[in-house]
């Protein structure tokens, strides 16, 4: 605003002089803007009359802050930025050797994840670790699994799916219904739930084969809602909004149970103290195992012809057809594979909660999973895992920030602001890294050396 001074005077004035002048302008303009907004406030007195409250002190603080801010920005911040820019330009271009962490990111990540529950138990004890293993560890891993599943559909095949939560729901309800009615074990129901979800993935895939882009997104969105509405209204089977409770716990491969009343309860078998943490830690490793399975299959699939066909489909569907690739089956396999991992995650979710209801499968879940995929960088497993950590872990950690109450007063509940902060964080990340945390793409085959493909060449797909 205040930068409308002519360039002639710029050349004459020193930065401090110019900053002083611009600070003055900024102060005047902010005074003009805020005099009615902040300086005066309408209120009601006891006798219900409208009165004008004058807040000149607050106005002075705001105007002063603007003027000082402008002064500091023009006098010191701008010259400093220009100096650093000039230095960077002058310095010879050095190819930055990727650091140790960057080089071994996957190995370090896997090690950290494996050691995480042990560290938590050591730090907080069995009872104290519950929160950290369950709310953070398992919760994040479920979303990692979901996002990696959706990554196959959106990131690799380039088919925008806004109804992914439907497959999550199918997996969860498949587990819940078969588990409660037939008492089948988790290890049978896990593949069954995956197969069921994959089946529904193909069911969704067939009608939307001809659709692309926005149209595909709308239809998948509708599909997600249909599944949720069926779950709510088909009371005889799904018990409607009340949901299904009493879902059997996962057993330790049938050898040990986590139910205190059972004769083979883990504490009794191993002669250790009774604690609910065992089950959570077991579930954590189970989720981690499922995540590793998802990652392994995804990495393998990418190097197989079908995975290359998915990526080729994302790049150019017409060229795919000219090379003899059956785009119909390719799209359907992408839907089915993505849905299968959604089903795995769903059945795990049901086993962990012990209760499912349609409330867990709203559109917001789809949006969050998609946001994780986009934020992490479509197609990159590492980036997506980090994005899940940031997004899910970030919202969970806001619950823990009790000290904020000291700053903003006892009424302040940070959880209520988590979605706001979440949105702001996403906007900032997308401005800073438009293609997500990891925008580049790892080639699936190479002749001489594996070089990452820059995000400027990859396409997002047309649907």
């Amino acid at each position: 605003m205040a930068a409308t001074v002519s360039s002639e005077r710029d050349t004459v004035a020193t930065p401090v002089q110019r900053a002083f002048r611009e600070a003055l302008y900024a102060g005047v303009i902010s005074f003009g803007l805020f005099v009615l907004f902040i300086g005066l406030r309408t209120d009601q007195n006891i006798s219900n009359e409208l009165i004008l409250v004058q807040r000149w002190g607050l106005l002075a603080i705001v105007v002063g802050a603007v003027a000082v801010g402008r002064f500091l920005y023009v006098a010191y911040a701008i010259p400093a930025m220009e100096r650093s820019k000039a230095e960077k330009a002058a310095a010879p271009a050095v190819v930055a050797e990727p650091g140790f962490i960057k080089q071994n990111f996957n190995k370090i990540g896997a090690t950290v994840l494996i050691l995480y529950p042990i560290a938590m138990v050591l730090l907080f004890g069995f009872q104290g670790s519950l929160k950290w293993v369950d709310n953070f560890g398992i919760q994040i891993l479920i979303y990692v699994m979901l996002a990696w599943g959706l990554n196959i559909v959106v990131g690799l095949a380039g088919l925008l799916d806004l109804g992914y939560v439907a497959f999550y729901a199918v997996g969860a309800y498949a587990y819940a219904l078969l588990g409660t009615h037939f008492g089948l074990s988790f290890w049978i129901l896990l593949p069954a739930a995956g197969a069921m979800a994959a089946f529904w993935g193909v069911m969704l895939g067939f009608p939307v084969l001809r659709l692309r882009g926005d149209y595909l997104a709308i239809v998948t969105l509708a599909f997600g809602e249909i599944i949720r509405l069926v779950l709510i209204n088909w009371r005889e089977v799904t018990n409607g909004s009340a949901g299904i409770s009493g879902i059997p716990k996962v057993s330790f491969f049938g050898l040990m149970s986590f139910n205190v009343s059972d004769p083979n309860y883990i504490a009794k078998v191993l002669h250790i103290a009774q604690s609910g943490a065992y089950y959570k830690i077991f579930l954590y490793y189970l989720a981690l195992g499922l995540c590793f399975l998802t990652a392994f299959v995804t990495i393998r699939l990418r190097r197989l012809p079908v995975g290359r066909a998915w990526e080729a489909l994302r790049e150019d569907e017409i060229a795919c057809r000219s090379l003899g690739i059956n785009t119909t089956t390719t799209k359907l396999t992408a839907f089915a594979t993505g849905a299968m991992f959604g089903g795995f995650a769903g059945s795990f979710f049901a086993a962990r909660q012990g209760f499912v209801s349609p409330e867990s499968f709203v559109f917001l879940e789809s949006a969050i999973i998609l946001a994780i995929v986009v934020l992490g960088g479509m197609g990159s497993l590492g980036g997506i895992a980090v994005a899940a950590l940031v997004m899910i872990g970030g919202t969970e950690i806001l619950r823990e920030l009790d000290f904020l109450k000291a700053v903003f007063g006892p009424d302040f509940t940070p959880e209520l602001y988590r979605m706001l902060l979440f949105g702001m964080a996403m906007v900032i990340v997308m401005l800073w890294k438009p293609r997500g945390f990891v925008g580049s793409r790892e080639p699936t085959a190479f002749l001489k050396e594996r070089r990452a493909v820059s995000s400027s060449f990859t396409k997002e797909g047309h649907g």
Partner: protein
Amino acid sequence: MNATPSSKDFILQVEHLSMKFGGLVAIGDLSFQARRGEITALIGPNGAGKTTVFNCITGFYKPSEGMITLNRNDGSTYLLERLPNHEIPARAKVARTFQNIRLFSGMTLLENLLVAQHNKLMKASGYTVLGLFGVPSYRKASAESIELAKYWLEKADLVERADDPAGDLPYGAQRRLEIARAMCTGPELLCLDEPAAGLNPKESAALNDLLMGIKATGTSILLIEHDMSVVMQISDHVVVLEYGRKISDGNPQSVRTDPRVIAAYLGVDDEEVETVLTEVGDEDVIEQLDIGPDAAHGPGNSASMMAGPVSDTVEHGDEGERVTVSKGASKAAQVDARAASIASKPVAPPPATKSAPAAKPAAKTGTAKADTKKPATKAPTKAKGISNRLDAPRGGKADSLIRIKGIGPVNERKLNEHGIFHFDQIAAWKKADIEAAEAYLAFDGRIAREDWIGQAKTLAKEVAAKPATGGGRK
């Protein structure tokens, strides 16, 4: 498929191919063959329908009519118009490239070539199931596919950049990569859509080498190209299209000297265009000519065969349903007309000169379509069986036959060629005459159905009642 022994010499046979988009005829009744092991070039001006032919052959369009037969080297035969899009490369072994390059730009060169071997690798990986567990047979197939990719990268002179993204390549290299990718599908017929477009002379020469190398491996090539240096140097056979029809077909030398091809590409002289357009009956041209009367360019000093090529697409089929390019747009057709006019001029000077003055008043009243200058010389050779034909219209001026419902300008011209100029002539037709007329106009029973005779009788009476007002069009 009743494949005759000779058909085995041709890898591709296109018969009576037509492609219509709504009312627009992109390809009209096109037939040609591509010999096995040869480079066949498909050339023509912009909008001639070359790419549409390609899209029909490679299954991106389903042709409206016609048959496209592909004879594979192993003797099997495929009807391409019946195969689904993706099965044409997979089973019939036809690969193609695109006019606007379609590479997988975010994938490396090597990956691009591996995607092209999808079907082979899918089988080797047991449709993913075996490949997921990394069975040795898949590993072997995978290594072989990389070898094949490497072979074609070397051929295309791109092996140095195998691990770079395809989108990072310069334009000429992208063209070569697209050809290499098509070759990785193991095609027997390679269809290239303008491979030399946008290449500099050096790149163009490199492309020629690459194509000759591909030809040497026994792959037949069908090529769309604008760059005549490429076409003339490497092709064995050239098919020339204009406005969806074939105007020439032969070896490069014969095509190069074909006046119709030259006209299609270079156009004809302005004077010739005017002459021809006048013959065709283009009202704009005639009006322009009338503004500044010019005896030298007056209409009617030649005969016309224009009814043939230009009006073909208008003619057969239901009236008004087809749309075709404006009259006189086809340069090749103009040459046909020119040639015909030269041929007929010495034969029939008297009626031509005689009819010339009569044409002008007719043109002025806006009845340019009334083709008064029809030569008598043509008629006898064609019109057989119509009894009461005249050598020339009475009084040098014909009735406007289009006033009869069912007769359009084209049929009017055809009737005129048969020596039918007046309503009373039609009114006097006997059964045999009707049959003869129908045979020539390719109408079945339409003359009787639409009661041309009855209409002609009433119109003849009208004309008799108030003569010489000119056959104004409704």
